[in-house]
């Protein structure tokens, strides 16, 4: 019973939060709503017994990613409303509807799962989720895991380089004389 209540509560909250993200005109509100939505998603993870994933979700998304966005937003003028000119509204809205309907149809379609077998059973007696995740991550998924690590490292370095002062100076030196409007 608790599970049902929790699911619906989280569902409604997540949808609302993400709805705000998509529709809000203020970037700050959108970001805050996104952070909230992430936390609720972590709630789903806990509900599904994926504790490790839930923790990672909160730490990485609500913590690190949001912090990054927050820093990023300092560069922009966030007080101003986001102005967006939308052309071809009819096309746009029909696309919204078509895509939404289709996706829901797919997902709610009876999923035939008879021949899906679990290779890595999630629950073994006496072994917790985090322990299992660790086991699998470092056996079967070792190489992807290492690659993900390298990828994160690379992106970190590139992130730093892109925004760092020296880099910026080089770029502005080259483009100093270009007028801003020309590129548009």
């Amino acid at each position, binding site marked *: 019973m608790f599970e049902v209540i929790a699911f619906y509560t989280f569902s409604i909250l997540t949808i609302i939060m993400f709805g705000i993200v998509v529709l809000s005109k203020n970037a700050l509100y959108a970001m805050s709503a996104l952070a909230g939505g992430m936390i609720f998603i972590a709630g789903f993870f806990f509900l599904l017994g994926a504790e490790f994933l839930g923790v990672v979700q909160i730490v990485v998304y609500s913590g690190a990613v949001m912090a990054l966005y927050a820093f990023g937003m300092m560069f922009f003028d966030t007080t101003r409303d986001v102005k967006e000119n939308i052309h071809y509204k009819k*096309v*746009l809205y029909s*696309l919204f509807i078509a*895509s939404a309907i*289709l996706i829901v149809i*797919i997902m709610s*379609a009876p999923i035939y799962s008879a021949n899906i077998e679990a290779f890595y059973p999630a629950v073994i007696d006496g072994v917790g989720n985090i322990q299992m995740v660790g086991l699998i991550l470092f056996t079967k998924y070792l190489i992807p895991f290492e690659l993900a690590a390298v990828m994160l490292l690379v992106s970190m370095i590139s992130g730093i380089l892109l925004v760092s002062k020296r880099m910026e100076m080089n770029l502005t030196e080259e483009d100093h004389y270009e007028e801003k409007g020309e590129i548009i």
Partner: protein
Amino acid sequence: MEKYLYIALFAPIVGSLIAALFAQSPKNLFTGIFTSALIFVSFISSMILLNYVDMDKIVHVEMMDWISAGNLSVPFGFVVDQVSVIMMVTVTLVSTIVHIYSIGYMEHDESFNRFFSYLSAFVFSMMILVMSDNFIGLFIGWEGVGLCSWLLIGFWYKKHSASWAANEAFIMNRIGDLGMLMGIFLIYWNIGSFQYDVVFANIVNLDPSEVTWIGIFLFIGAMGKSAQFPLHTWLADAMEGPTPVSALIHAATMVTAGVYLIVRAGEIYILIPEVGMFIASLGAFVAVFAASMALVNKDLKRIIAYSTLSQLGYMFVAAGLGAYWIALFHLMTHAFFKSLLFLGAGNVMHAMDGNLDIKRMGGLYKAMRPTAILMSIASVALAGIYPLAGFFSKDKILEVAFNNGSYLLWGALFVGAGLTAFYSFRLVMLVFFGEKIYEKDGIHPHEAHPFVIYALTPLALLAIVAGFFEHSFHEFTTQLLSDYEFTLDHSVGAMLIFATSAMALSGIAYAVYKYKRGGFSENIENWGVYKLLSNQYYIPKLYEVAIMKPFTALSRFAWLNIDNKIVDASVDLIAKTIYGGGEKARKMQSGNLSSMLRWMVVGIVVLLALAIFYRPTV
């Protein structure tokens, strides 16, 4: 004897090729003499062969293979038998005389050498035509004479009318050639050979309907070459060529090739009397039809051309009714007197500075007596008066028609005989006697060179005496050709001869009488009949309106409308659609991330829809 065969065949082409080397250089008497000499050599060889050929002694050679593919095999083979040797002698004799005559006739022409080259090439083609031992060889000659005829009619190519007439002749002949090819194809697929002997030996085993078709197709070929109705218009126009050409090609030899074909293929036609009857009927029709046009024409050469047409009709009557040796006999005698007539006309034409209107001549007898005598002899022979050559051959044809019970044909030929006599003497009277109208045009006629006249005498001699060889000719040719049996009573035969002679004589008499007294009054030119005849029954006009113009219009329509506007346009339309589609699709690639994202979503939607709704049955 093979040696003589090769000499007879190849001497003309040697002459032609050597003359061709000088084609672009100025006049060189040597070419004329040289080619004439070689044709004469060919004539001598033919005479030797004529002497040699007898019952069993036929010269038959196979020079080399020509085409062989599948089951088909065509050699260059030549045969000298009773029929071909007659043709060879006739052709080479007339050719020799025409060559010598041309030395005089063409003496002022800048393309003297070229002329002799063409003329000898023609003789060569004609020799192939008559000497070949198979239908394909015949066809080679057939087309070869067509080509030479094209070259020679259009010899004075600067004249629009000459080149037009040349093309007309070639194209009309091609229509016939197609028919002939079809006949040859039919022979091949039924018998598997083109050799005369094989074909004739096996033709009896064929289905009668197939034989009928073969006969019809071959006759279509003959119609083209021999200018039978409705393919006759080219012959009169072909008179644009130099006169010796008209004498040689369009009177004595090439146009008679059709008759030769029917005679040669007699063994086929004997099986299909219905087709033979049709040939004879058409021949009789042409005999009268052409003679009627000759009655009113004012052009010297055209009159003789129509006369030729009419005489070809006579030959076809004989050939169609199965009297092959008579057809061949008339072919030979006709060759002599008709070429004589033409060559005489050439002299007249020269004397009149190229003027051909007989109404502008008259009284030329004084100025050119030998020519007048020669032409008169030829005309008498043509009219068929005893004892000249025409009498023997033409009367025989009438007899055949009567004998066959085809009284209608006989009647037509009988009328034709009268007409022939009339127009021949109308011509003689208007040209040589009466008032000297030419003096008004300030022309001073002069006789041709003496050697030209001398060259013509053998022809005149033959036109007079050839008829007396009838019996030996009959014996000689019927060794090969099937004989024709006369069942007529002697007295009826005599009656017929008398009637025909009377008809011819009265025709002559009427012409002489009428034109002595100044001819017909001018207002007959307003008669409907006169107009009809002088416009050649409006047939050339009809061809122009009903065939040439629609064809040109249709061709232009096919090009401008069908080809450009439908076929090509539809191709271009495809290209334009694709190009236009690309032009429109280019907008998709606006570089705007937002619209790209939208397209991405479209893609996702489409793919998802496919994944859900399209389930291939495995």
